Structures are given as C-alpha cells and as structure tokens.
C-alpha cells in the first residue's frame, strides 16, 4: 500500500468537512465540520512525518489539537451565548448587523 492512500483519505475528509460548513445551518454542526477539517489536516501531518522520517509533523499535529481544543471552548461559548439571546442555533438567524 502506498502512503498517498492516507493523503487521499485526508483530502476526502477535508472536502466533506468543507461541504458541511457550507451546507448546514445548525451552528454546532458547522463547527463539527471545522473539526473534521482540522482532523484531516492532522492526518496529512502525521503521514508526512512518516514519509520524511521527521517527528516535527507529529509535533505540529499535536499543536493543532491543542489550538483546536481552545477554539472549541470559545466557539461553543459564543454559540451558547447567541442561543441565549436569539433562542436559535441557526447561522441564518445571526443577522443583526444586516441593515
């Protein structure tokens, strides 16, 4: 098996995550799409770490995970706050800045 199989899998996952972000309205599901994209990127980093025999890729994937955890905390707090004020988790309802 070729190592590029992992890259193909990561590309497909990334595209599905991007499509989720574009198509779904529920803010939480959109956020999960972002998480899926980050995970696909991590898979690419780990695969290239193996390809080049250098652990830096794994360290970068580790940092991506940590930053993703911080991002999830803040993002979900924002979603909860919007839900409290607007009673909706749909990204279409956040349109107060529209004139």
């Amino acid at each position, binding site marked *: 098996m070729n190592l590029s199989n992992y890259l193909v899998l990561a590309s497909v996952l990334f595209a599905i*995550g991007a499509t989720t972000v574009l198509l779904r309205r529920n803010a939480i599901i959109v956020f999960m799409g972002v998480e899926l994209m980050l995970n696909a990127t991590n898979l690419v980093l780990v695969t290239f770490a193996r390809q080049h025999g250098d652990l830096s890729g*794994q360290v970068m994937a580790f940092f991506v995970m940590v930053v993703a*955890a911080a991002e999830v905390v803040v993002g979900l707090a924002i979603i909860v706050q919007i839900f409290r004020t607007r009673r909706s988790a749909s990204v279409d309802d956040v349109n107060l800045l529209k004139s």
Partner: protein
Amino acid sequence: MTALGAAGSPVAASPVAASLATAVADTGRTGTGEATLFWVLAPIMVLAALGLLFARKAIHAAMCVVLVMVSLAFLYVAQDAPFLGVVQVVVYTGAVMMLFLFVLMLVGVDASDSLVETIRGQRWLGLLFGVGLAVLLVGVVTRVTYPAPVGLAEANAASNPVGVARLIFGDFVFAFEVVGVLLVTAALGALVLTHRQRLVRKVGQRELARRRVAGLGKTEADRDAVERKGIAPLPAPGVYARTNAMDVPALDPQGRPIEQSVSRVLRVRGQERELEAVGVVPGPATGPVAGQLPAGPASPGLHLEAGEDGGADRHAPTPQAGAPGETAGPATPITTGRGPEVVP
C-alpha cells in the same frame, strides 16, 4: 516488519541493534496488516463523515464525528504515532466531542436544521464546491511523485513519546508556552462569554414558598403565579397495573386524568398516552354524578392542582393538530362595510 508492529510492540522500543537495522530499512513501507486496517477503516470513516453532512439530527452527526475521530486514532497508531493516537482519543473524543454533546443538550436536541434555502441554489453550489475540492485535492495528491518513505524507526528509537517530547521541549518550547497562554486565555474567555449578570435579586426557595402561600388571593400577579404553578409541586405521573411509564397521567380523586402530571415536554411533543391505552377507564366527564362528590372550582386547592381548565373539558378528546399552514377559517362569510362582495 510492518509499521503497525513497530508502533505497537515493545520489541521495537527496546533497541536491539540487529533488528533495528532491518526495521530502519523497512519501516517506511506498509505491510499487509496496515493495508487491511486502512481499507477497513477508510470506508467507515468516509461514510461517517458523510453522516455528518447528511444526518438530520445533530446528535447523530456528533456520533458520526466521534466514529471518525476514533478511527483516526487507530490510523495514527498504525502510522508510528502512538502518542498522537492517545492524545486524539483523550482530547478529541474525550473532551471536545463531549463538550459538543453538552452544548447540544443545552441548546436543545431538536434544534434541527431548517431546509429553507436563504440563498438560492446554495445547496447545489455548495455540493459542487465540495466535489470540486475533493477532486482537486485527490488529483494533486495522487499525481505527485514522492521520494521513498523514510519511516520513523530511527526517530522513534527511544519510543515515540520520548521523541515527540524532545522536540516539543526543545525546538518548539516557545510555541509550547504560547499555546499554554492560549489555553488559559480560552478558558477565561469561555468563562466571561457564558457569564450572565444578575439583574434582580435572587429569589430563594424559602421566599418563593412564602410568596406563593401569601399570594393566595392578594395581588393579581401573585394569583396568576399560583394559578400557573400551584401551591404544591406538580403531581407525579400515574402508576397502573400494566404500566408505570411517565407518559400516562395520574388520576385525581374523581377518577379523571390530571394532565399536569405528565411532563410538559412530552405533552408538547404529543408523546402523551391516553388512559384507555393502558386499560384504565377514566371517570365521568362532567358535573357531579349521583353518589360522587361534586368536583370543580368549589375546592380551590384541588382546582389549583388539577389545572385551571376546570376539569369539565379536561379529558375531552383534543382535536388533532392540522398540517402546518392549514388553518380553520371562519365558517360564516365575512361581510365588509361596503356591503357584500360581488363576484364577477
């Protein structure tokens, strides 16, 4: 030697010089075991990711993402990254996805997507973009020629966590500290964002109880509050010979169902069961029957507990809700001030 074996077995971690030499020469290539693992996991992962895209309920989407992330952890371990595999399970499936589930419960499980397109053609454009992105990425990835894979046996000679730790606390120590600051900031930010300032004084349980009793018949607002909630706690659902589920109403002393004993959520969703469904014949509908105590608004306590609709029409069959958009218009023709409408 397969990369899977190199990651999983302690033999690879203990540096035996002779076997290490062959491992270094061989570890970049993938063996049959890893290929099998990949071809089992990859379709599952793609299907689960499509589940995230198409699932109607947010909970199902979250479980699909959990499946993808656990499978990714397997792939990490297979790719000589056992440390990342463990971190993936702990951080992503353990912390991040559980946080997602918490927020889903907080926001409401049936906050489902509306399917109304606000931008015309957005769905097809989005799908087109997704397919195009996939084709582009896969095309680029498959058409590049890579050098022979080096493999991680050398870098992982003193076990993978040790190798990663040397890099994190060596070359990347500044990034590590910055990330620590970021985590603290994110925690504080979440605290500040979800903090709600109390505008009125907190009403304790004792004051609430006193106000309810004292408010009986005093001011209009207090009477309303008592009317809505009653003095006593809400009655428990019914317990019968054939069922004690919480979707069946209890009976009051006159043998009539108490609607408030069924949880409000079940009533809103229409998942409440009728008494006849469990083989209980409810009491007579209206008025005092011979040999029975007169029921009704005469006794305020009972009235309050059983609900404000007086009991007479309480278990009259409620009409089925019509389809959305269907309304029962007025039965009589409407005459305007200008006289009857003339239909040409």
